């Protein structure tokens, strides 16, 4: 006869409440672990998904995600010529914050190298990848931009042609993919008035300075679009990505490192930059909090299970009186603790699976994390039982009398 189950059956209400309480507690622990994973996953998502072996960025910077990087457009051709490189492409990344329906809308804009990269690798849930050079966006669902929506960014209107899921930048902002040209335009193109003001300022500078006296053509051109002024070449790329023959990454990095204006990273190097840099503190913070929460959950669970055993001491004395061996008493306490732990874990998993997707940032429950938490729960249950068992083994059967 299983005593643990019979006790549960008789005190079903208390059991359910206990499991619910412990389940919620475990859900928080679980969620904290999920948030931790989410931060790591989001931080390295782009690096992992963009199919590149080597990232070439502005010299001395940890770009393009950890800090701003600017490289000349011609770099793509230079990189393509490096032995071992299969192909190279432009990459643009920047974050903008605009207003939409009265609320701030933060978009991480990623420029894809048209026409080599149309975003066929994107996890689309709706629509299609980019199909033309201009005025199209593939937006992440988290941005709240529905398929077919047109949005004004800078001077142009862009149409959402595809919707992805789970594509977030390390800061948690949803990513919108456009062609490199469009991405540059979104970031750099100013409103008509701003352009007029900038040109006027340039003309004033030209009139005052000495340069136009030596080079009259410069004064003439001061009012033209900035791209046509050769003294100010546009450096609007963020990075150049290279696909490299397998095993030749180091060789390519070696070559690139000899150039005085850029620095190269492997994909692993980029991951490390992100994890050590961008999210290191958040990660440490969440990690510590998670550890703390686990300890607290342990203590609370231990107390609950211990109290449950204390409540049963009289019954245990009675069992001893009628000659129940220790193994029966041990099983009663241990099985019940494990049952509560297991049901609590199940409640946590069910509640979490329902609740976490509704969080603004990703909460990722990975199997190893869940297994680890399950192991912790088992350990807690056993540990807490030991306290109770220690007490139970000491109770005298004489206490059942009276």
């Amino acid at each position, binding site marked *: *006869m299983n*005593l643990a189950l*019979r*006790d549960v*059956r*008789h*005190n079903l209400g208390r059991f359910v409440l206990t499991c619910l309480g412990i389940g919620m507690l475990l859900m928080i622990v679980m969620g904290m672990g999920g948030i931790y994973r989410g931060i790591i996953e989001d931080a390295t998502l782009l690096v992992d998904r963009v199919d590149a072996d080597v990232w070439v960025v502005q010299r001395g910077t940890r770009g393009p995600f950890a800090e701003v990087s600017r490289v000349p457009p011609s770099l793509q051709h230079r990189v393509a010529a490096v032995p071992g490189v299969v192909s190279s492409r432009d990459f643009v990344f920047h974050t903008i914050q605009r207003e939409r329906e009265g609320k701030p809308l933060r978009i991480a804009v990623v420029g894809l190298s048209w026409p080599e990269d149309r975003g066929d690798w994107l996890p689309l849930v709706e629509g299609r990848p980019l199909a033309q050079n201009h005025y199209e966006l593939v937006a992440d669902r988290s941005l709240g931009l529905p398929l077919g929506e047109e949005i004004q960014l800078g001077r142009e209107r862009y149409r959402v042609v595809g919707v992805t899921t789970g594509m977030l930048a390390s800061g948690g902002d949803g990513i919108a993919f456009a062609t490199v040209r469009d991405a540059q335009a979104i970031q750099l193109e100013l409103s008509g008035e701003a352009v007029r003001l900038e040109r006027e300022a340039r003309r004033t500078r030209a009139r005052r300075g000495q340069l136009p006296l030596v080079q009259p053509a410069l004064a003439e051109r001061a009012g033209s679009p900035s791209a046509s002024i050769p003294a100010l070449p546009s450096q609007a790329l963020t990075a150049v990505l290279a696909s490299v023959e397998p095993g030749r990454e180091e060789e390519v990095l070696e070559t690139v490192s000899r150039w005085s204006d850029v620095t190269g990273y492997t994909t692993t190097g980029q991951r490390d930059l992100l994890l050590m840099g961008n999210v290191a503190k958040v990660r440490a913070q969440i990690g510590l909090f998670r550890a703390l929460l686990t300890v607290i959950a342990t203590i609370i669970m231990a107390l609950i299970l211990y109290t449950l055993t204390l409540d049963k001491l009289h*019954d245990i004395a*009675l*069992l*001893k*009186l*009628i*000659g*129940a*061996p220790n193994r*029966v008493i041990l099983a009663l306490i241990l099985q019940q603790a494990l049952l509560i732990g297991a049901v609590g874990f199940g409640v946590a998993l069910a509640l979490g699976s329902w609740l976490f997707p509704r969080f603004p940032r990703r909460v990722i429950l990975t199997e190893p994390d869940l297994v680890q938490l399950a192991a912790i729960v088992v350990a807690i249950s056993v540990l807490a039982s030991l306290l109770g068992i220690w007490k139970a083994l000491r109770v*005298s*059967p*004489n206490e*059942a*009398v*009276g």
Partner: protein
Amino acid sequence: MTATPPTPALETRQLTKVYGEGNTRVVAMQDVTVRVERGEVVALLGPSGSGKSTFLTAVGLINPPTSGSVWIGGELVQEGPRALTDLRAFRRRHMGFVFQKSNLIPFLKARENVQIALELGSLGSREARKRALQLLDDLGVGERSEHYPTELSGGQQQRVAVARAIANQPELILADEPTAALDSNRGRQVMELFREIARQRGSAAIVVTHDHRALDVFDRIYEMEDGVIREGQDDLHTRAKPDPPPAT
């Protein structure tokens, strides 16, 4: 257990129990030497605080005496505070308890309370279940078998407790005021039950009671006063006048 010279169900020698020390020192039981034969049903009388429960729990191997020894079924099991066998296993195999409060396990139904005792006595669960139901039927609480103790009346609880106590056919049944919560009719019924069980199964029973109207059920009467036991004659009037001390 079936030796030719009949061994007594219970024998104690000079059982003494001292609680506390110094100012709080109480000699609850002093030099108690008794012998109860198989099939015998013995009443234990005495005012409150005279040491009846102390004696019963010492003999029940749940409250070790300060000194003295306990033989059960001819086996020396307790010598002073020292246990000479696995007491819990011994209780399981050879003893049954009934107490004033029913002392049923609250989270087990009536049938399960009896069944657990049978299963602890290493009966298979199906067999134990059948036997438990049979016992409860015998005791007239068969139709209450699937109820929790709290759903039973005091008398029904006591019957279930008795069923549990006798389930494993113990050599020794110890009952401490089992009828205190019952009216005298039902009280007497329980006493007669012990009588019957003792006869049928050859076990001995020691019953602490205040109910003098049921004393005729018993084979012998022990009386206790200030921790000292003596054998009484049989009834109220013998108790009233101070007897000459028994030859010890």
